[in-house]
């Protein structure tokens, strides 16, 4: 089995996790910028974080044979401070051409405030101006429905945004259809408690579509599992899905989306290449 982990906050994980992911068949790991669990006091803190994402973390991943890619932004949890957000937005362009940068993310909303919306709009503008892929975080729990609607409205109102170049992450049963129907990609996040379990993720794929969907663990410093994607693949096998279908969902789909960024390349991973022949 091979898979791509398209959303993992590896700066919060140990090297044991890298080893386990590589052993489980991970071919590449992609790390969106996110909230550290505390508010950074200045844009300088983000500068250091972006250096970590573009210099240090790729080297750490490479020790385990894993290509490491990243997305840059100031996350929605810190977007309430618009002035700080503007300062951070100003330094992002100097990192965009670094070799492991995929685009702008994970941007989005947290509590669905006006300031968060303003900062989201600025991020979308930055991505459009630099023709970058976008990774969108949708809010947690009770705020997800409203936040997803607001995000979709904002993205659809910008004629420069091509839906097939945007992935809207953390969808659940009440938001997946509106995302796919609008032409965007949908990410299903596998969390032990919040977001989706493996069984629910497969339910959604079976009920909606496998066409523009990826699975991710979004593992970070909280209660999360860096092996959630391969564990969900195992669950798909229990439910009778073929190896080819599993390969399409956990490897070819993220490869198809991420390959829209010229920086993304995995050795020997041409689209539609043969799935592993082992059982």
């Amino acid at each position, binding site marked *: 089995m091979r898979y791509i982990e398209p959303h993992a906050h590896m700066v919060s994980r140990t090297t044991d996790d890298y080893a386990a992911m590589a052993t489980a068949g991970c071919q590449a790991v992609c790390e969106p910028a996110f909230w550290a669990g505390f508010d950074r006091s200045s844009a300088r803190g983000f500068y250091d974080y972006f250096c970590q994402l573009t210099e240090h973390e790729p080297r750490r991943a490479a020790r385990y044979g894993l290509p490491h890619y990243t997305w840059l932004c100031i996350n929605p949890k810190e977007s309430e401070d618009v002035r700080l957000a503007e300062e951070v937005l100003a330094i992002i362009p100097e990192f965009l051409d670094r070799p492991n940068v995929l685009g702008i993310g994970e941007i989005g909303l*947290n509590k669905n*405030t006006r300031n968060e919306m303003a900062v989201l709009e600025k991020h979308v503008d930055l991505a459009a101006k630099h023709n970058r892929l976008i990774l969108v975080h949708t809010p*947690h*729990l*009770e705020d997800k*429905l*409203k936040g997803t609607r607001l995000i979709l409205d904002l993205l659809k109102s910008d004629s420069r945004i091509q839906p097939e170049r945007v992935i809207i992450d953390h969808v659940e049963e009440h938001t997946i259809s509106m995302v796919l129907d609008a032409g965007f990609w949908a990410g299903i996040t596998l969390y032990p408690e919040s977001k989706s379990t493996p069984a629910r993720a497969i339910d959604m794929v079976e009920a909606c579509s496998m066409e523009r969907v990826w699975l991710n663990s979004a593992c970070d410093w909280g209660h999360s599992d860096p092996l959630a994607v391969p564990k969900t693949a195992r669950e798909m096998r229990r439910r009778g899905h073929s190896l080819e279908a599993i390969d399409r969902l956990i490897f070819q789909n993220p490869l198809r989306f991420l390959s829209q960024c010229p920086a993304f390349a995995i050795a020997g991973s041409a689209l539609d290449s043969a799935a592993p022949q082992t059982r």
Partner: protein
Amino acid sequence: MRAVSESGLIRRVTDLLLQRGGDNDVLLRILDWILAHFHCAVGTIHTFDPRSGLLVLAAQRGVPDAIMDKVRQIPIGKGMAGVAAERKEPVQVCNLQTDRSGVAKPGAKSTGMEGSVAVPMLVEKNVLRGVLGVAKPVAYEFTREELDLLLKLGNVIGQHIGKPTRSALLDLYFMDARSKLIDIAAFMDRVERAEGEEDFRMHAFREALKQLERGGAERAKHVLLTFSDPTTEPIAEAPGKSACGAWPGREQ
């Protein structure tokens, strides 16, 4: 010419289905193996679509173009395949060209075949997944052993096409769901035994529980909607960073 034994054929079919699932190109390859094994020239695999109640052609070999439209979709009870699906047992005709039983449709003669059989693809004994049909250019009566092998092959194929049955899903998930349900019951007992007042979260929880009695296979969606903020305008200021799982606004 039987290149592989009966058990070898079943194993080969099972392995391919496990490897690649029940896509139409896989079914065609399997059909080729079955035709070779039984020395047949014409074969069809129809899958059953429970929504329309029709058998839908998924793979075929040797069906003349002239009758293709007639075999693409077959109602249950019509023709050999339809009757086999209805009776859930094999239906065979020793010679299609001379048969007067009425079970074969007139178009079946156009295949030029004589000895033919249709077997239902059944899982868990009675759940219909489709029909497998094969025919020879000579008059022939399939033996009990041959029919049993075709039924076994139909069962193997049937397990890999269509969604898992309710029984299969219960096998997979019942114990887990049962455990979670008891956890919920214990949680509600725990809250009830404690002192003080319930807040909006428990009220939302009780509302969400009502969604479990809904039909339409969208309970998860409606439970999530029950907990969700239904408003549409951004708020002025964040009350904090975290979410609590239920929208407090319903009671404000």
